[in-house]
């Protein structure tokens, strides 16, 4: 919400009709400002209460300061894992959505199965299955004599983490992509069909370019959520924010210090991402007005 302070362009204070309008604008502005001020005050009070509570808990700020560099290095791992995963998830979601909408029973069946299995199971279990379960299959294959194929099933922690997050988010995003594609009006399909386009030409040239503008803000939201869900990959010992914080916390039992630091880092990441996401959203809202 933005609060403008200058009167609108072309305002003429001598015109009584316009002067009246300006009074109403000023009044609405006062109401908006008062509301924002009150909300800000509530935030301030909450921050003060929490800070006070922390002081009472005998927090050791020096421990945080001493180890902030170490945990901060994990931010890049968190961002890297999330970024790689959101890209792969988007590709999976695109194919998933196209499969659901293709009318082809095989494609529809495969992507429907994928979506419901992934959505029906916890991300943490998916991580364990990929990281710890798959190598068992690999060993069986190697025993059977398929050396190359068997080794493919043994993934590093980073590979497993990215694969699990991609598969998981890809399933949820399949529904987002599907809704985005379906939001394009039926008239667009008919117009494309009327000039003789095949279904694939229609999808590629007419539907997807418009659907992408609907979907991109949602991808942003998913990316923001994924940054936090990526904390789960710490169970495999990937050196991201949570793993680093956890390690130091256990060393000297400074749990509150280290996990608060981790929480703060995720919070800052979210604020930054949200800022870019809402800018992007605003730009896409004015599509086609070149």
């Amino acid at each position, binding site marked *: 919400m933005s609060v403008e302070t200058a009167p609108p362009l072309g305002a003429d204070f001598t015109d009584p009709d316009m002067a009246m309008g300006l009074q109403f604008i000023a009044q609405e502005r006062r109401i908006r400002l008062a509301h924002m001020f009150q909300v800000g005050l509530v935030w301030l009070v909450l921050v003060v209460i929490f800070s006070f509570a922390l002081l009472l808990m005998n927090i050791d700020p020096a421990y945080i300061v001493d180890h902030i560099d170490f945990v901060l290095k994990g931010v890049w791992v968190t961002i890297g894992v999330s970024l790689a995963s959101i890209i792969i998830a988007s590709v999976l979601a695109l194919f998933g959505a196209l499969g659901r909408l293709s009318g082809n029973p095989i494609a529809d069946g495969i992507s429907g199965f994928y979506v419901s299995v992934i959505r029906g199971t916890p991300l943490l279990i998916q991580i364990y299955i990929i990281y710890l379960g798959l190598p068992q299959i690999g060993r069986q294959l190697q025993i059977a004599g398929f050396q190359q194929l068997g080794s493919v099933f043994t993934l590093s922690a980073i590979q497993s983490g990215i694969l699990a997050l991609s598969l998981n988010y890809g399933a949820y995003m399949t529904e987002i992509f599907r809704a985005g594609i379906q939001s394009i009006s039926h008239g667009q399909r008919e117009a494309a069909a009327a000039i003789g*386009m095949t279904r694939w030409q229609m999808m590629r040239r007419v539907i997807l370019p418009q659907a992408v503008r609907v979907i991109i803000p949602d991808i942003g939201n998913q990316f923001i959520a994924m940054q936090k869900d990526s904390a789960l990959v710490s169970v495999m010992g990937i050196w991201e924010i949570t793993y680093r914080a956890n390690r130091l916390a256990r060393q000297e039992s400074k749990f509150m210090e280290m996990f608060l630091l981790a929480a703060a880092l995720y919070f800052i990441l979210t604020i930054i991402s949200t800022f870019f996401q809402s800018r992007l959203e605003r730009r896409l809202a004015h599509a*086609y007005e070149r």
Partner: protein
Amino acid sequence: MNANPIIRVEHLHKWFDLLHIIKDVSFTVQLREVLVIIGRSGSGKSTLLRCLNFLEEPSAGTISIADKSVTCGVGVRPDRNQILSLRLSTGMVFQEFNLFPHMTVIENVIEGLVTVKKLNKAEAITLGEQYLGKVGLLEKRDEHPIRLSGGQKQRVAIARALAMQPSVMLFDEPTSALDPELIGEVLDVMKQLAYEGTTMLVVTHEMGFARDVADRIMHVDHGEIIEEGTPEQIFDEPKDIRTKTFLEPLRKVQHL
């Protein structure tokens, strides 16, 4: 009349679930003929038109346009390629324009030429500009549709359909979504096309246009052709009582 029609519709049926919307309709259209289809809302006239290029798949019947022919029926599913090639013989103009909002005006017009007909871009643009000129909108070639008035959008939609050089043009209530002051510019373009000898099927409520431009008028009600004839026959001496009662209230409003 010529014995070799460019459109031949035989025993066309359309069911929506258990609703029988089109009931055994057969008719032909001659080359260069302008056929206007009139009828009250829900009479099936739009569905009839949309069956011609399979935007609605007919439940049964045969549609032949130019040298393409497609048959449907229980157990007879036409294949995709047949339908695609039939669509290339038809150009369609919609009530809601349905321009592609993410493309400029010229991109809209050449889209089919480039993507479907595989023309190279330069050729397509030359052709596209020619048709944009025809509808009087060459100066809007680089605008996005959102910047155009309804009348301008519909003229671009006409240019987009014409650019594919179809054998027949289908108009599905092309002025029904327009503000009254914008209807004239679209009808003028359509009149021009008619005078140039374009074969046209027009579903419309514009009775003045029907009287001035149509070679033949078909009155459709409850999915059947109940009367057809020249504009004089239909407007001045309608034989069927249903045609009379349909036209009566329109006479005063549209100055027939």
